[in-house]
Each structure stands twice: as C-alpha cells, then as structure tokens.
C-alpha cells in the first residue's frame, strides 16, 4: 500500500520532508519509525490523517502519516 510520510523539524535532517512510500498492508506506524531510523524516544507527536495517533496503529492505503519530535512554541 502507498502511504504519504511527512517529517518535521529535526527529523528532516538526513531524511526528507515529504515522501510517498510503500509498505505491506497492515504495517503499524512504529514500523515506519524504525525503518526511518528515528529513535522512538524522540517521537513527540504522531499525526495520522490530521489526528493524533499511537505507534501501534495500523496504516491503510492512502494514509497521511506525520512524525514530529517533541517541539513546542506559543
């Protein structure tokens, strides 16, 4: 299945900003994180199709996955 993966802030360094990527059906988010070599402890926020998500959630065809380190502002 095809997934759009977006990375933000420091996660982009040495990786990418947006990429369409292909995974086997039923892949959980955590697999993508591992595959991208992002230490899990650095994950601040996961958004799946504009909603907060957990690492265990399974991905589906056409999903938009966004990964953020713990950042803030205001």
């Amino acid at each position, binding site marked *: 299945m095809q997934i759009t993966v*977006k990375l*933000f*802030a*420091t996660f*982009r360094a040495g990786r990418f*900003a947006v990429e369409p990527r292909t995974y086997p059906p039923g892949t959980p988010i955590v697999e993508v994180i591992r595959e991208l070599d992002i230490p899990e402890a*650095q994950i*601040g*926020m996961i*958004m799946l199709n*504009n*909603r*907060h998500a957990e690492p265990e959630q399974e991905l589906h065809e056409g999903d938009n996955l*966004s990964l*953020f*380190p*713990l*950042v*803030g*502002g*205001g």
Partner: protein
Amino acid sequence: MDKIFRVNMSDLSTKIEAVPSAWAGLGGRGLTSTIVAAEVPPTCHPLGENNKLVFAPGLLTGTPAANSGRLSAGAKSPLTGGIKESNAGGTAAQMLARLGIKALIIEGLPKGDAWYSLHVTKDGVTVQEETELLGKGNFAVIEALEARLGKKTGILTIGQAGELKMTAANISVKDPDSKIRSHGRGGLGAVMGSKRIKFITIDDQGAPGVKVAEPEKFKTAARTFAKALLDHPVSGEGLPTFGTNVLVNILNEAGGLPTRNFTYGQFEAHEKISGETMHDTIVERGGKPKHGCHAGCIIQCSQVYPDKEGKYVTSGFEYETIWGIGADCCVDNLDDIAVADNLMDDIGIDSIETAVMFGVAMEAGILPWGDGKGIIRLLKDEIAQGTPLGRILGGGAGSVGRAFGVTRVPVVKNQGIPAYDPRSVKGIGITYATSTMGADHTSGYTIATNILNVGGHVDPLKKEGQVELSRNLQIATAAVDSTGMCIFVAFPALDIPECLPALIDMINARFGINLTGDDVTELGKYILKTERQFNIAAGITNAHDRLPEFFTTEPVPPHNAVWDFTDEEIDEFWNF
C-alpha cells in the same frame, strides 16, 4: 528594601513609597493586577485620568535564575475594557529589580498638550518635557536615547501607534541587542500615550541589586531548574533551533491553523512560512537562528532574520505573527512577513492584534488576500501616519469589523483571537473565552496538551477535559507570570518532576520563606479571581466569556469542527 516608585502626571510629581505589606509577597502579574484592582476604578475611561499604568518585575527577576527577566505591565485595557497584564522580555525588568523597584505606578494625566519622558534612577523618577522624539518610531527612539544617555540605558517606549492612542498600540522594551520586545496585547501603549509619556529611560548605576536570603539553597535550586530547561526537548532543542514558528507545520497538520480569516484550518503554502523553512533561510543568509530576549535566557527561542543580502530585517519573529500575516492573510512570502514584523515593532503596534486585524481587513475588501506588500504599505502609509484608515486599522480586529460591518470577526472581549482555531483545538477555545485578558493563548496554553503531548494528552477535537485543562493551566500561568519567568518554562515544568519544585525553592530561597506547591496554586487562583472581579465591576460578565457566533455556525475544514460548548459548560470554568 524594595520600594514603590509613583509618578503623578497630573501635577508631574513623583514619590518613593514603602511597599504595603499586602503587596510584599507579590511580583509581576500578581502585583500589577493587585495594584490595578486596588487603585483603578473599574468603570473609568481607560485613557482618562483615573487609569494607572503599572510596571513590575517578577519575584525572581534580577536574580541569576534562568529565564527570569520578564517585566509585567498592567492597566485597564482600552481594547477590552477590562484589566490587562502583558509581560515582555528586554532589559528593563532586571534593571528595575536591581534598583529595588517593586513597582512603578504612573497615574493622572497632564493638563496641556506637552509630551514627557520619565527617567528612573536609584534616587527616584524625574519627569522631563520631550519634543525631539515625538512622532518617531521605536527604533529611532532607541537609537537617539542611546546616543543621549549611553548604550546601557534601559528603555520603555511607544511608537506612533501609542502616541495616537490606538487600541492596538503596544509598549516596546529595549532588548540586549537594542532591538525590541513588546508588552503587546491590550493597547497598553495607548494608556502610556494618554499619559503623554513618549518613553521611560532607566539608569541602574549604583543599584543595590537583588539580595537573596539563602544563597546556597538558591544556587542548588537554580542549577536543577536550568538543567530541566536544557534537558527538555522543547526548551532545550526545539525552541532554540526553530523558534516558536515550528508550530506552523504542526498546527497545519492538526487542522488548527486558522487560514483566510478563520475560514479554513490549513494553509496550502504552510511550508513556505514554516519554522523549518525559516531556520534554513536564516542559516543560509547568515542570520542568527537563536537569540535571547533578556540576559539569562537559556532557551533562546528568538532569532535574527536577515534579508537576501544578509542585512538585518527583524528579530523576535514569532509564530503568532507569522501565522497571522501569513496563513490568516494568505501571505506566503516570509520576507514580506518579516518586513511587516519589523514595521509593527517600529510603529509600536501589537503584532497579534494587527495580524488578526489584517485578516478581517481583507475580508472587508480593504486589500486583496495574500497581499503582503499591501500590508506593508498600510502599516507605513496609513497606521504610522494616523490617517482615518490607519486609525480604523490601529483599533484592531474588532474596530475594522465594526467600521466595515464584517460578521466574521475573531475576537473575544474585543481582543483578536491568535493562531489556534478553537473549533479544532477546543481547549484553547475555553482559554480564549474565559481569560480575564480577552482572547489570549498565553494565559492558559492548552496547545501543549491538546497538540504537543506535553503534560499528557487531551484530544483537541473533543469537549471532554478541556475546561479542567484550561483552568489548571490558567491558574498555573497566573502564578508563573508573577515570578518573572518566561512562560516557556511551562514545557519542562509539565513533564520534568524536579522543575516546578526547583522554581518554588528559588522563590523561597530568594525571600527566606516556605511556600508550598499549594501556596503557588492559591496565588494563581487569587490572581484570576482578582482580575475577574475587576472585570465584572467593569461590566464584563459570563455573557462575555463567549466566542463569536460564527465559530458555532461555520464548520472549519479539514475536521469540519464547530464550537459546541454550551454556556453552562464554559461557565464551569469559574467553579474553583
């Protein structure tokens, strides 16, 4: 011994007073709000002789505590008609604290047409007539005053907006690089302008400095506190690298980035104005990606943004400004937004209120969507000149809405709603609705927990838990605003267990007292209730703790969320 410095502009007299015992334990917002509530009649005209402008450094300001250099300013707001506290960085707070000035209270109104300046030294305040710098922007004022009085002079000043008594006018504070930080919100610059004070200079030569009652205990706590700030990813890495503007992409992804005057929750061109793009641009052009607003700041969320030739354009370039001139006005050119930011600093006008206002102005047809150059032109040629159009614009979002009959006007208590859509981030909607300050994200920043997973997580799209979240954060924020601390210490404080106790230990060591966490919570509650009581007496009631009608009737994409709290649910906020 700390003192109260008091200036009466009606007779141009000044006094130094002992600190009343009831005020001894207060600083920052707790003190300015207490003084305003005690001395300003709630129904007075905000630009009349009975309003008072109060400045107070925080409880820890002037000590070596990290990030403790914020100054609070308070008065009755000409924008909201209620009480106002606005705090800012810069060099003034620490100078006032070292001079032993617990608060500077400015009251009365001069009789004639002359303008004045105040000069604060260890011996008191002197009032002088000012002619040379009238009509000048803030940067010219700072430059001239440094030439006149020396580079080290502390400066509080108003630009043209404050002189013109525009209700979006701010008070600018000189920062360590002779640039500007602002008491932005609520029109305090108009209050200073009404008192015909163009600027206040501070000379801290011979200042006694801040005495710490228990220096060893203080040092230990300060070290723990600083470590927490540096250890937390938000304050230790994210903010110094990307600044607050890292939020553009986050809010866009969450569908909570108000776009085209709050019509959409996402901005197509978000990447072009994002913190990531800004960081790369600054680095590429040889600017400074990190920068502190006051000495002792170890977060360094500010930055210096240069143009293509590497020349200074602006600093303290914040998410809310970039969101407002950017997404909310559909401007996708970060350079234009930077120029506008610098102009707003120079003119002395709140960059949040003004950004929200431009969204309404575009809705009104005053200029086309996305017209960044038009915004720059209106700032220069209309607002700074005080033309009739400039006066409408300088009155903020509500002013433009009233003058042009616009119904989509994002304000609460007439103050512009900042950079987080309350329909898709519901906790912040409770803060906007209930804050004693009018719409103000900083007064109870639920974005931390609704979006950023700091301090836990409360689903931004559901109503559950939002009132309690906002209440807890507003109480805590009122207390933090009293310490002189930057509000960003909240990020580590919400996640790192040692952080808050270390903050309290520093206060205890500073004064030789024994506050507990509960005492601090009680302080926060006392401040909110004091401010609310002032507002109620001024005519601001539950009926004003409401978001504008359009949030309840217009669903915002992508979640197509509406604001769906009942009045009763909102009013629960005050149940403490």
